[in-house]
């Protein structure tokens, strides 16, 4: 009874309030449509001139990858369940850029999410699901996804299954190596590499599956590319009609082989690498790593390397080499028209931020941009910075926000997801 009374009172109060605000907002809406306005502090980000940013939502959970429908709904994949759900939908109902309508679905945590040809695809750390979208971009049956890939290996380390799709009915799934460098004993100082590395049979590469076939597993897929330690950020480049991936390079050269590498080299090697992949490519992990100062593939110390011996030439070269350990967690080729021309067809990279440069200061925690001209990358630059909220990150825990997902909205806005505080940012261009 008590409850009924208080609910009724609340109802009265709300009815009264909404009466007033509805009138006010109605007249506002009629007079002038609400437009997306950047937050006064650009959501705490440092951006190039002419750009602004706002927080679409905050504190929604461990937001990994994101995808935006043609209608502007943002779907966020959560690494761990929040209130029992692993996919969050953010809807801006009044056009101001902020999500007023937040709902969730899916009972699995994970990283991957993508929209293609009327389906929403999402991954757990072992499976890939898809949901039919209707003409309005709404998920038709949130409780009944189709399971298209099952049984992928998950041994804790590098467990996330990132996904992207081509224009030919295929889906590409990263299966990260459950190891740092395929040592006999993982991360044990001095332990040598296993030869051949048995992990590569079922992980340490990109697998290709059909986008529409149910219950596929390893036997149904193709190991599209191998020798990739862990790819979290990947995207299909429609201009080149080619798969591009960002690898998380190996850790601990000095910590594992202190007589061969200095602490400074431990922090600076190897490069975080972007590869343009062709079917059958081998990027060299665990046998080789890429040295961005020598611009060479070097033999890994677990396999007889000493920082001087080069690795095999059978491995592909990266198309871009970034500083070490910055952890590229998302990649997006920008195809929109909102941003200035130089951004068209270029790649945005979300760097999650380093931890194993320690004891030297950590790096990353920003979104970088690589211009592309005729399919060839130019010089990369920092695009959006300030996510960490502090000038120097000494311990990774100190970073307030960590970029982990990227998506392009139908108007050409760039969305960035943060998996530390669960903030979704929207970056818009307002300059002339």
């Amino acid at each position: 009874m008590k409850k009924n009374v208080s609910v009724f009172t609340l109802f009265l109060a709300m009815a009264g309030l909404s009466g007033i605000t509805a009138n006010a907002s109605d007249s506002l809406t009629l007079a002038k449509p609400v437009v997306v306005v950047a937050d006064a502090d650009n959501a705490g980000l440092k951006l190039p001139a002419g750009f602004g940013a706002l927080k679409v939502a905050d504190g929604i959970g461990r937001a990994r990858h994101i995808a935006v429908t043609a209608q502007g709904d943002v779907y966020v994949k959560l690494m761990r369940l929040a209130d029992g759900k692993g996919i969050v939908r953010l809807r801006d109902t009044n056009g101001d850029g902020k999500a007023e309508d937040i709902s969730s679905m899916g009972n699995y945590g994970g990283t991957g999410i993508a929209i293609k040809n009327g389906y929403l695809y999402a991954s757990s750390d072992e499976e890939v699901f898809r949901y039919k979208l209707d003409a309005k971009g709404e998920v038709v049956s949130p409780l009944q996804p189709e399971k298209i890939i099952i049984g992928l290996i998950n041994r804790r380390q590098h467990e996330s299954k990132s996904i992207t799709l081509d224009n030919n009915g295929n889906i590409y799934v990263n299966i990260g190596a459950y190891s740092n460098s395929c040592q006999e004993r993982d991360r044990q100082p001095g332990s040598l590499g296993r030869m051949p590395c048995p992990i590569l049979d079922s992980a340490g590469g990109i697998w290709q599956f059909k986008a529409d076939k149910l219950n596929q597993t390893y036997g149904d897929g193709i190991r599209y590319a191998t020798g990739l330690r862990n790819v979290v950020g990947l995207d299909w480049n429609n201009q080149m009609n080619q798969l591009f991936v960002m690898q998380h390079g190996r850790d601990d050269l000095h910590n594992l082989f202190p007589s061969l590498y200095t602490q400074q080299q431990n922090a600076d090697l190897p490069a975080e690498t972007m590869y343009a992949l062709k079917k059958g490519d081998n990027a060299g992990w665990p046998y080789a790593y890429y040295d961005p100062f020598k611009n060479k593939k070097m033999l890994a110390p677990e396999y007889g390397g000493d920082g001087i011996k080069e690795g095999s030439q059978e491995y592909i070269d990266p198309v871009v080499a970034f500083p070490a350990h910055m952890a590229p967690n998302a990649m997006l080729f920008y195809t929109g028209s909102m941003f200035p021309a130089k951004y068209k067809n270029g790649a945005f990279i979300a760097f999650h931020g380093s931890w194993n440069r320690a004891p030297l200061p950590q790096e990353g925690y920003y979104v970088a941009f690589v211009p592309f001209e005729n399919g060839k990358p130019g010089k990369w630059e920092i695009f959006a910075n300030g996510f960490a909220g502090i000038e120097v990150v000494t311990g990774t825990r100190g970073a307030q926000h960590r970029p982990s997902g990227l998506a392009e909205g139908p108007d050409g806005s760039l969305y960035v997801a943060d998996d530390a505080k669960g903030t979704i940012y929207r970056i818009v261009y307002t300059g002339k």
Partner: protein
Amino acid sequence: MKRILILSAAAFACMAFQTAPKKPLPAKPAAVGSANSISASLQRGKQVYTTTCLACHQVDGGGVPHLNPPLDGATGVVSKDKTRLVRIVLKGLDERVELDGEYYSNNMAAHTDLSNQQIADVLTYIRNSWTNKADAVTVAEVKMIRAKIK
């Protein structure tokens, strides 16, 4: 798995208590500067930490979210169960274990190369650094536990 770990840790702890001679409670503070004074142990422990632990557990003991567990503020680190701590140092950890409500992806290497003194020092250091406050781990304790888990 977690239960097994806890059970085995408890079993080890029981064995340790059974065989441990009843010793008088914390003797007078050791003389400053002697090999086993707390401050000397902390200093040596910091060196071991810097060389062996810092890369993963970070300079602030905060670990790396979802990858390497924090030591600062971790209930397991300041726990009375020193056996489990010594065991993790000596055996490493490569299983999915929930720690204060979180899971961590990276494996920890075994550090059998550390001496009993080094393990006592580094555990005393991590139990008394950042916001942690707990009693020291002695060489005798490490020696006894090491003998049990070999």
